[in-house]
């Protein structure tokens, strides 16, 4: 009551401050933002709160509370692993947008892409972003591997995480390659024809491998459906599992490798 009386004397700024105070002090607000959240009432920059920021966030607690000082040097990691992950998230978001406008059938696929580019708001932009982010991700994963090798970061105890990393590189290439077919234009069809012809030369059961991949003897509407499901569901599912193990092992193996 006394506070409200004082509030009357103050200007709108004080009223706003009072409102903020009341909202941040409410039970609902406190239940949403866990201790240490910078949106919580009375957040101050203390070591305790800095730890809480990480511990009480589902996203940030991928990280430990503290890392070695050299680990935050941009010149050491060049952020390549993190950027690969960021690009994966970006590809997921833009990919979901594209899925709303796309049917994986030989008769409609190209038209859907064309319609997306010409008559859907931001359709062209989002498709461009999806395409360039995919190329960029292949590049960043590749450079990340080079960085890890040159730092000798695959050495014990990190051998197995390197193996998982090679699997992730392969999965990234497969994701990019399966997506390549989906626009169903001349570029897609013939790039995939060249690529899958090479797989047909696998010894002993080469033709079977090719048949299973294409869903037939030739690239057609069955191939499109097959690669669509691989691209939007199966490979992302598999790569997320491997990424989870990859990130978890980074921490279990003692954080990122030491300085040279």
């Amino acid at each position, binding site marked *: 009551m006394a506070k409200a009386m004082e509030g009357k004397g103050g200007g709108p700024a004080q009223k706003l401050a009072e409102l903020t105070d009341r909202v941040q002090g409410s039970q609902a607000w406190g239940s949403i933002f866990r201790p240490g959240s910078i949106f919580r009432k009375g957040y101050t920059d203390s070591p305790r709160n800095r730890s809480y920021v990480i511990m009480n966030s589902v996203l940030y607690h991928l*990280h430990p509370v503290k890392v*070695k000082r050299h680990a935050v040097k941009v010149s050491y990691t060049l*952020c390549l692993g993190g950027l690969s992950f960021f690009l994966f998230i970006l590809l997921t978001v833009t990919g979901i947008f594209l899925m709303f406008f796309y049917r994986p059938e030989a008769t409609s696929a190209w038209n859907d892409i064309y319609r997306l580019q010409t008559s859907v708001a931001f359709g062209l932009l989002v498709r461009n972003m999806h395409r360039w982010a995919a190329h960029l991700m292949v590049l960043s994963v590749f450079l990340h591997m080079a960085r890890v090798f040159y730092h000798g970061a695959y050495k014990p105890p990190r051998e197995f995480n390197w193996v998982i990393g090679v699997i992730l590189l392969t999965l990234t290439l497969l994701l*990019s390659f399966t997506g390549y077919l989906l626009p169903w234009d001349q570029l897609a069809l013939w790039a995939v024809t060249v690529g899958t012809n*090479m797989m047909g030369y696998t010894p002993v059961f080469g033709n079977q491998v090719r048949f299973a991949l294409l869903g037939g003897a030739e690239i057609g509407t069955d191939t499109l459906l097959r690669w669509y499901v691989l691209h939007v569901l199966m490979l992302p599912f598999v790569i997320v599992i491997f990424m989870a193990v990859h990130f978890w092992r980074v921490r279990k193996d003692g954080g990122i490798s030491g300085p040279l």
Partner: protein
Amino acid sequence: MTEIPEHLRKRAEEARKKAAGAAASSGDAPAPAAPEGGSGGGEAESKIPAHLLERARKAREKASGGGDEGGGVTTAAPAAAAAGGTATAVATAAPPVAAGPGGHTQRLLTVVKSGSIQDVKATPQDKVHVWPHLLAIEFVASLLCLAFLLVFSIFVNAPLQVLANPNLTPNPSKAPWYFLGLQELLTMFHPMVAGVTIPGIGLFALILAPYTDRNPSNKPEDRKFAISIFTVFLMFWAVLVIIGSFFRGPGFNFVFPWQSGLFFDL
């Protein structure tokens, strides 16, 4: 090695000084404690059953009679300790329940530094909080990446050629850029070697790298061989991809891009 915190060390020093001062004026210090200890001892005496007191007295007599017997020492020692500075006749007679100087029933005998009894293997590391140090960097990096992609996507369109036509083979037909190294190998080797054997061996060699490289050092000067091999490996693929992307024209024949133009789509 753990250091004793500054404030605790100071407190201990002060206490030590105080104790030294008390010892210097030895006549004074015990005096105020004496009546307390005396009365406390008296009270305790009154509360202890007579037969127990009798037993204690007998044991003490036996101990003093038996000389340096182990049992005697242990029973006598607490009594002496309890009596503390107030070595009055009453206190000596009392069983070991009396308080020490200042009424404390316990006292600090010594501080054992952790290093002297524990072998601490982990050396302290220079660490920083992830928030804000690492999260801020990651946030900026992802923002820059997003900004670059957004601007690039505004100005450069993803290719969309004419509808796929299985009866019309474009010339040249090229795989996606990351497979162009393999396609380049196709010009030199049998398809099985170029498309399966070489990439298979490459992938296998990559997976086995940590198990074949037994050198424990990660310093560049100690790993000249590993670094050379890997650089050759990277350059091999990079050169093949670049040749396949930019220097291959119709019929996948070698061309110069500045003469015949680009035959390359992303």
